[in-house]
């Protein structure tokens, strides 16, 4: 177990180093001259040179690369060109928004997806099964932004017209300020992200449950006289959860780095919105910081997934 963890972490470090190197190369592929952009069109060559010197851009590339890695390793992601603030400050402001969205959404889609999947799998070819798999396919085929807009139209705009003001259309209230309003503003984004994602979990759980319930040890459990509910949840679901756990790790890890589409549709000031705004402002340090952070989330999520595997399935021995 320990050897496995060390190996897995080492791979994670390599991935992060690769990402950092790719991202560092971006500074030099970038079509615009940083100092020139900062100083403005009229700036003299001396001013540009001075800015280059302050930013350390006149040093040899290998030195810059070294100091970039060193600073990133210490959690220093440089300064945003657009906001004249440390990138980490910007990320610190927006991370709670994305985290609120993803954690709440993840709870809903996990419970909804797995329970519906089990329901469908334990009654294969029944009306329930066909209805849920059909609905799952509908939401699976639906682009996230389309569902978000539909929910906005029906639950915000149409309800608003008839005087029902339950769901706000856009915005965010911090949890620390007012938990109730926080939840109220997040309901539609949660629903959006949860419905499209739950579709994958329904399909995944159903398929994997159907496979597992055909295994010999399930027959053994039944023949011992264990109740069907216990067979399904303690013996079946536990083993069937393996692919679900993988998917959950990837989804949460990826989304924590910015639930770009959902944040965009609902005007949530999270990391995804920061990424889109930095793109329009050509704010390279912020984009690079976000890429590094998002990759780190995915790498960490993958390691956690592997640990959870061994806890769920006794047949998995990590080595």
């Amino acid at each position, binding site marked *: 177990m320990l050897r496995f963890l060390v190996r897995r972490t080492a*791979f994670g470090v*390599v*991935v992060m180093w*690769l*990402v950092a190197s790719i*991202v560092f190369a*971006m500074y030099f*592929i*970038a*079509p615009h001259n940083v100092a020139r952009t900062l100083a403005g069109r009229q700036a003299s060559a001396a001013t540009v040179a001075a800015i280059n010197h302050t930013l350390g851009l006149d040093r040899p590339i290998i030195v810059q690369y070294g100091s970039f890695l060193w600073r990133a390793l210490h959690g220093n992601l440089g300064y945003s060109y657009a906001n004249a603030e440390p990138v980490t400050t910007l990320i610190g402001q927006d991370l709670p928004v994305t985290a609120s969205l993803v954690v709440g959404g993840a709870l809903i889609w996990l419970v909804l997806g797995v329970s519906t999947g089990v329901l469908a799998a334990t009654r294969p070819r029944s009306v329930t099964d066909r209805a849920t798999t059909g609905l799952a*396919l*509908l939401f*699976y*085929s*639906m*682009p*996230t*932004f*389309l569902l978000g*807009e*539909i929910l906005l*139209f029906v639950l915000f*705009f149409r309800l608003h017209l008839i005087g029902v003001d339950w769901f706000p259309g856009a915005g965010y209230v911090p949890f620390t300020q007012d938990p109730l309003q926080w939840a109220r503003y997040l309901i539609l984004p949660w629903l959006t992200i949860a419905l*499209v*994602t739950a579709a*994958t979990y329904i*399909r*995944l759980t159903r*398929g*994997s449950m159907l*496979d597992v319930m055909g295994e010999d040890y399930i027959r053994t459990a039944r023949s011992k006289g264990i109740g069907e509910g216990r067979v399904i949840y303690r013996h079946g679901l536990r083993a069937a959860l393996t*692919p679900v756990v993988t*998917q959950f790790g*990837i*989804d949460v890890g*990826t*989304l924590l*780095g*910015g*639930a*770009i*589409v*959902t944040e*965009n549709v609902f005007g949530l000031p999270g990391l*995804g919105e920061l*990424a*889109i705004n930095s*793109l329009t402002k*050509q704010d*390279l340090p912020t*984009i*690079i910081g*976000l*890429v590094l952070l*998002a*990759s780190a*989330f*995915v*790498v960490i999520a*993958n390691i956690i997934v592997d640990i959870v595997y061994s806890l769920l399935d006794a047949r998995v021995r990590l080595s």
Partner: protein
Amino acid sequence: MTSLPALAAGTAAAEPLPESGGAAVEGRSPWQLAWARLRRDKVAVASFAVICLIVLLAVFAPVIAGILGHGPNTQFRTTGLSPQGIPVGPGSRFFFGTDDLGRDVFLRVIYGARISLLVGVVASGLAVGVGLLVGLAAGYFAGPVDSVLSRSMDVVLSLPYLVFAIALVSLLGPSLLITIGVIAFFSWASVGRIVRGQVISIKGKEFIEAARSVGSSHARIMFVDLLPNVLAPTIIYATMLIPLSIVFESTLSFLGIGVLPPTATWGNMLSEAIPYYRVAWWFVAFPGLALLVTTMAFNLLGDSVRDALDPRAGHFRTRAGK
């Protein structure tokens, strides 16, 4: 030599024998069996018909434009917009109404199908091609080749694709080519992983040993002996990859980092339509519906293809863009 040995063993027994009364028993290959199953599947036939219709509309878009007498970017400032500058609703002149610039939404939806299908097919094709080559090489050669290729697949699979796409677009600028490239780049690794697994499970079989014993080259073994045996899972994955790529493209275009206006795509039409949803539902509804019908048709067909080719396959899929 049987192609698809695993498939043949798994599915031949499940296939009910047609006309067993007296007629001579006819041998059918696993591919023929799968084809027969697919043709009997009503959902598959229906979704295939829908896809054919969309393809026809996309191919003949210029002809339709010729019949209507205007192009997808023609602006009707007087007939296509109300005096207040509001888009005109569906009617006999504009079947799906007009958009904020007085352009024909019907024609733009049809032109949007060209981009969606083009991106869906080309990006998936590229991803499947690269994935097949890498997967075959990794599975067949093992050792250091496998290590390098597998680790690079792991790396690609552990990149947060949408954030990365934004970073790439910020450097290279948005375009159709970049969109296809980005989608293919983030999709080939899952194909490679599936192919590699398949190759490893069959390369120890006798027919590969036989091929080696008669002196077949590595290339011949990989492409003549191994390739036909990994085609089934690859085809299954490819049909699932097309709708994923279409959603990916529409998401990028919606965010303004995919295919840019004035080229009509369903994604950028929807993004232009959002401010108008209170006054012009048709502007949002028709591109949205086109997108949903297309991805649903491909997903339904994909499910049927999987059931036909491999009734016991697992479902490994990820979604693009949340």
